[in-house]
């Protein structure tokens, strides 16, 4: 492969050119109710050529390696057509040339587990859900594993062959009573160990009980509350509310956003620390090199409340005069790499959960994360369930808890950060542009936020 890609790159007529070729073997299965609805094994093979000339980009993706030189020429011609109009300097921050072939450091590789065993494991989980309570009318149990061999080479002379593994499972109990249907579940994943899906029985039974309890739970009343986010919700919050804003490709060309995101600016209290890392081995989204061949790292974003860094590709780093952070990631070979998060974390604080509850007359404890979205300034995210907080104590269970707010105000309104910690490697993923779902993960303790708007009847 090395010879093939470097020979093809000789045809490049551009300021920069790269080739990325991927071969992914995937197993997936889905139980819905009693049925094993889907089971499949697939092979996804393809590659791309990306070229930059005079500030313009060309990108060609394909499934066949035939005529690779021709594909290199086409990408370079496309880049030149853009460059002829832009006539700008091409920007790619310098990084050390790397020639390395890396085997994945996997503890239990999913390819070593027979398909029969995978089917058995999830059949048992499915039985736990369906047998838990008469109100549980159905289940949704999904599992996937992917093993991807990536070959990357560029005109700087870098050649990296690395294997990436991604494993995930999500299991939901669906409870129904009359016209009310609710769901609760367990979700987990890993980039290096099939064992992440084992031993989930007790957690799953708790989720089943919660689903049953939610049937009788009221919908939360809309309004402005003091909110305690559990580590999963806090992780979702930091990903949606601040992580996306830290992706420098949206900052480079927009002077107004650059002003807002000026390094040294205060965004929160001294208790607030936020970072993103590609080095948390085993977490979904971690790897040794990103999809531009740049080593990954831990990137501090906010330290003691002050903005200290952001996530970069080689291009965004060069345009802003900063260093690349190994954050250029592509969903697969059919997409160019763009700036993405890996494991995004709120640093541990020193408040206990009991201390957080103190002084809250009426608040909400938001637990688990369905999902969320941001437009840079505003965010919305939905908890899987919540509890009212009344006079400093946890009170009744509530459902349909959706939070919204202004990113900057909300960060400033974080007044307590917990002394506990959890990495959330759920089986979902991050969406940006049309590249979704990309494997990412989050880490956080409990976090308390003042003045959060929650949707619902007032």
């Amino acid at each position: 492969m090395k010879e093939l890609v470097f020979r093809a790159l000789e045809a490049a007529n551009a300021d920069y050119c790269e080739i990325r070729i991927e071969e992914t073997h995937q197993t997936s299965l889905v139980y819905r109710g009693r049925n094993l609805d889907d089971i499949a094994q697939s092979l996804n093979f393809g590659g791309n050529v990306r070229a930059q000339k005079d500030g313009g980009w060309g990108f060609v993706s394909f499934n066949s390696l035939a005529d690779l030189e021709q594909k290199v020429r086409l990408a370079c011609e496309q880049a030149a057509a853009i460059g002829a109009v832009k006539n700008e300097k091409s920007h790619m921050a310098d990084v050390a040339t790397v020639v390395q072939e890396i085997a994945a450091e996997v503890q239990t590789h999913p390819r070593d587990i027979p398909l029969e065993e995978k089917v058995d494991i999830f059949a048992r989980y499915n039985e736990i859900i369906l047998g838990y309570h008469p109100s549980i009318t159905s289940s949704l149990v999904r599992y996937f594993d992917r093993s991807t061999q990536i070959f990357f080479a560029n005109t700087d002379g870098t050649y990296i062959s690395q294997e990436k593994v991604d494993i995930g499972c999500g299991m939901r109990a669906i409870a129904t009573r009359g016209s009310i249907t609710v769901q609760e579940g367990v979700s987990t994943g890993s980039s290096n160990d099939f064992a992440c899906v084992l031993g989930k029985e007790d957690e799953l039974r708790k989720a089943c009980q919660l689903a049953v309890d939610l049937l009788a739970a009221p919908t939360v009343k809309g309004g402005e509350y003091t909110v305690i986010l559990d580590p999963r919700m806090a992780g979702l919050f930091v990903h949606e509310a601040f992580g996306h804003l830290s992706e420098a490709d949206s900052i480079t060309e927009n002077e107004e956003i650059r002003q807002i995101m000026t390094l040294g600016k205060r965004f929160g209290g001294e208790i607030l620390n936020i970072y993103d890392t590609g080095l948390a081995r085993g977490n979904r989204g971690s790897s040794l090199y990103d999809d531009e061949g740049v080593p990954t790292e831990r990137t501090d974003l906010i330290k003691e409340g002050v903005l200290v860094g952001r996530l970069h590709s080689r291009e965004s780093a060069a345009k802003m005069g900063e260093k690349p952070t190994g954050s250029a990631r592509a969903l697969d070979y059919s997409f160019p790499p763009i700036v993405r998060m890996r494991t995004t974390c709120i640093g541990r604080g020193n408040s206990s959960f009991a201390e957080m509850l103190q002084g809250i007359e009426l608040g909400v404890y938001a637990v688990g994360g369905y999902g969320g979205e941001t437009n840079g300034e505003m965010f919305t995210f939905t908890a899987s369930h919540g509890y009212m907080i009344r006079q400093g104590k946890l009170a009744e269970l509530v459902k349909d808890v959706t939070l919204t707010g202004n990113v900057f105000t909300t960060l400033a309104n974080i007044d307590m950060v917990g002394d506990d910690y959890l990495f959330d490697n759920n089986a979902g993923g991050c969406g940006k542009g049309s590249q979704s779902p990309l494997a990412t993960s989050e880490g956080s303790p409990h976090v308390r936020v003042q003045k959060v708007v929650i949707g619902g009847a007032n």
Partner: protein
Amino acid sequence: MKDLLSRAATVAEQAELFQYNAERQAVSFESSKLKEITSTEEQSTTLRLIREGRLGSSTVTKPHSEDILLKYASNTLQYGSSVGYKFPGAARLAQPSVYDARVTRVTQQEMLDMASDLVSALHAYDPNIKAMAEVAKQRGTYALSNSAGFSAECEYTTWLLVFGGELVSERDGFLFVQDYIAGTDYEGKTDLLKSRVIESFRLARNIATIKPGQYPVIFAPSEVGSVVSPLLACLNGRAVARGFSPFKDRLGELGFDPRLSIIDDATASGAVGSKSFDREGTPTGKRALIDRGTIASYLLDLQTAAELNLVPTGNGSTGGPVPNNIIIPGGSSSFDEMLAGIDEGVLIEGTMGAWAGNPYGGQVSGNISLGYKIEKGRLVGRVKDCMFSVNAFTDLRDNISALSREQIWRGNTCYPYLALQDVNISAKV
């Protein structure tokens, strides 16, 4: 690949082969600057096998990988889902128009000029707006054949124009506006797209405040999909067959306002969801899912139809039943009349996070990312920092005040404006 069906016959009783090829070209502007040109060649082959009532499947994108395809599909056979159907045989198929040779003839330069024209229009309106535009064309073919004798092929084109912009200011914060045109036919006229985007920026120029409470709300066609999404989730045959849809055993029941119909139409000419046969070889058509308020049909593939003892509806895909094109017929009011009748309310054009809730409970809540305050029948400015919350099951039964005559096609949906009474709006007090 053609002899794969006969090879498959040695390991399975039934076999189905789906082959897909596509070429796509796109040009894009970002932050008002020309950004990139992309070309994509895509191919994939999927084999599904049925043996002793169990289904196995595999997909490969690597050329000349027939052996792996057969091996992987065979591997999954013994564990696969129990199926109570047979692959369909040859059938008479409708032929909706999904191919326009003009799309294939558009040159890269013409695409660049079109994108440049869109960006220039926004720049002329306000040079502070960072404009984005994408012009993309696609040509593809897909072919399905099976051991029961079904064999058909379709050639299609897709034409896509995406246009919008981003305005960031100290006073107003972040404002994003984006709209698009997508269809199978070439559309060279961009005036309507330009005017929709520029009008949104114009309306958002002023900031209006709103107190928490219940208001009449008009959902623009771009956001009607968020409100009806729980209905589509619950009409999906999988949710019905597995027992978690509240619409199970309710066919023929009046569940919604009689002014509301939801139609799945695979025959609409030029729409991206149109097709003569679905992914499993079932002929497609046009059918009401909600017919004047009555739950009339589910979205069914072969498996869910067999489980529910119903006829498949031509909505099969690789991952269960999916809609083809969803149409909500318009009502009797014009949009202007709907607006004029509201003393104080909100028009919602864009939301965030409305997809994240539990669809089977009907609850839809989201941030209003692009919405305007209505005062005495006029749009007076953009509302910010607030959420809407509706329950699709009850609000589409009891709270519809009007559906507009005007409808807008976007991709595979065609929706009117939808006005609801007494929608909960949460905002900072």
